[in-house]
């Protein structure tokens, strides 16, 4: 091994205490950065997953006319031959797992006293359960069954607002395909997770049979939703969805296929600013660690002034001396950073068991997240590389400051130093 490395490494291990203290600051900093980044990515994933699982699905097929008037959930722009479209889709886009039709409409939901406008969906209960996460997020009661008749599932938020409980009657009135008003009563068979009313997902669900009875036999299917196996990361999910949408668009040119990225646009825009905040954290912590390293190396320089004189007397240049102390800083930084990666990895591993959001955030309304959901930290190898690189760079730059001072020492003066 190079003599400078040897001297640097041995000095780091000789002064174990200050190495450990500086190293711990570094370790904790990088560990927290990795965990924070992982949780942040996990939250992103969770909110996108929630969106996919309750409203957008992996990919959504609609007519271009429907999309243009989307806000009014019109019943005039249905998909011409949904059965054929689904068959074509299944063949053309192998990445898709399951397909389900839906028709959204606005209804007045009432408990016979008060009424609330509610985004509602006509669904095929069996197919819908394969594409969307509703069936598995029923808090009370059960999901819709085919052919049962006059049953509804409502979101917990709406049920609460109208004071409705499981088994109660729900009065729905809506504009039919024939453009007149119609109303009917449904029994609430299931109350679904609260998050449904929070992220643009419908809050009332009826089977197509019931919906046709209410809105007219000619009720069209206005969208086809698709699901795919869960990807390893958000980035791969977005890419896979974009690819699926372009394949679908090519196979069904009269329809418009929107990938999930299209629905997550606004969310993804805020995500970048959150990322910046995580870099601010690592910057602050590394600043503290860097101050520690400056201090430690300065101590090292002052306790070895005469040694510096000896090395200079034997012909080492100021550059060699600078390099000697920079390496010492780098070694401490490397120890701290590697320990930080281990700590970060352990924390992420712990978070992979699932963190109950309610345990963390108590009663705070998290908007887009299901409160009873579990948050899983994401494993992001790039974060570890960034953490290590930041740690090494910060310690090297920090060590340069005292190292330069060491290089400037006059050898004759240094040798006199006691």
């Amino acid at each position: 091994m190079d003599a400078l490395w040897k001297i640097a490494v041995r000095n780091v291990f000789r002064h174990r205490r200050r190495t450990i203290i500086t190293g711990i600051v570094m370790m904790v900093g990088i560990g927290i950065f990795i965990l924070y980044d992982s949780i942040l990515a996990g939250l992103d994933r969770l909110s996108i997953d929630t969106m996919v699982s309750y409203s957008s699905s992996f990919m959504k097929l609609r007519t271009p006319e429907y999309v243009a008037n989307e806000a009014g959930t019109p019943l005039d722009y249905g998909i011409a031959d949904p059965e054929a479209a689904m068959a074509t889709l299944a063949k053309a886009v192998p990445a898709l797992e399951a397909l389900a039709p839906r028709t959204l409409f606005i209804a007045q939901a009432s408990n016979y006293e008060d009424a609330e406008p509610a985004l509602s969906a006509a669904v095929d209960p069996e197919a819908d359960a394969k594409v969307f996460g509703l069936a598995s997020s029923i808090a009370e009661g059960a999901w819709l069954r085919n052919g049962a008749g006059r049953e509804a599932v409502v979101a917990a938020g709406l049920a609460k607002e109208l004071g409705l409980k499981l088994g109660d009657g729900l009065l729905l009135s809506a504009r039919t395909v024939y453009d007149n008003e119609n109303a009917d009563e449904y029994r609430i068979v299931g109350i679904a997770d609260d998050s449904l009313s929070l992220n643009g997902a419908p809050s009332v669900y009826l089977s197509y049979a019931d919906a046709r009875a209410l809105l007219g036999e000619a009720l069209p299917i206005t969208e086809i939703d698709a699901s795919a196996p869960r990807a390893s990361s958000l980035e791969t999910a977005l890419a896979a969805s974009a690819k699926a949408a372009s394949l679908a668009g090519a196979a069904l040119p009269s329809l418009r296929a929107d990938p999930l990225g299209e629905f997550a646009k606004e969310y993804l825009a805020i995500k970048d600013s959150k990322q910046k905040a995580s870099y601010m954290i690592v910057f602050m912590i590394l600043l503290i660690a860097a101050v520690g390293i400056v201090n430690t190396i300065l101590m090292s320089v002052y306790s070895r002034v005469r040694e510096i004189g000896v090395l200079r007397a034997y012909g080492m240049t100021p550059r060699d001396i600078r390099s000697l102390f920079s390496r010492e800083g780098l070694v401490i930084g490397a120890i701290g950073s590697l320990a930080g990666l281990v700590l970060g990895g352990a924390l992420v591993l712990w978070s992979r068991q699932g963190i109950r959001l309610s345990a963390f955030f108590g009663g705070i309304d998290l908007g887009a997240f299901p409160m009873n959901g579990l948050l899983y930290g994401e494993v992001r190898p790039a974060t570890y590389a960034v953490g290590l690189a930041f740690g090494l760079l910060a310690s090297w730059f920090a060590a340069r400051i005292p190292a330069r001072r060491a290089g400037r020492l006059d050898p004759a003066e240094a040798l006199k130093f006691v």
Partner: protein
Amino acid sequence: MAILQLAKVSRSYRKGESEVKALDAVDLSIDKGEFLAIVGPSGSGKTTMLNILGCLDSPTEGTIVYDGTELHGLGEAGLSAYRRDRISFVFQSYNLIPVLTVRENVELPLVIEARARGRREAKSDREIKALALEMIEAVGLAGKAGRFPRELSGGQEQRVAIARALVKKPLVVLADEPTANLDSRTAGEILDLMREINEAMGATFIFSTHDKLVMERARRIVALHDGRIASDSGAPAGARP
């Protein structure tokens, strides 16, 4: 032939308004293979003289000619290189590198030399190791090569320092009060060792001392007083031409 010639060398330090002349117009000529003691009371300029001879410091006036080379104007890098190639030091407080073993300490001058030379011209690690072990044996520490300095006595540490000084076969070995931290018996042994090596290897030794016993072993004594040469016993006939 003189390997070292000082002509009218002065070194002054500014202390506020006044100026201290640590060396005052010193003329001195030293031959190859000399074993020379610089003596004088505290503050007489011994350390200043050795620092200038060792290229650790430059005179404010006068010239030094080293082995035919005029040192004036060599600059920081040039002086570093000059020290590296021809001059070695032995210090009063030994100054071994505490984190290096005896062998690694002795290897250090050769390693520094190898770092400065290109890979092709440098000695190999094996050569360096062999030279260091040879030198460790020569100072009577065979078997202690793997020890760390803290495991040695003061006399042993100074022997390692002498091995470190001689391993690169320097032109001149400079020692500022090399025995001041040792008891008189050990001091005598160290002086005997230096003298042995001086005779066997022909290395030039210049050392400063306060100690009468040490002076007795020198072959030439230069006495300083207030930065001037007060007396010089002269180059002995035995010094090599």
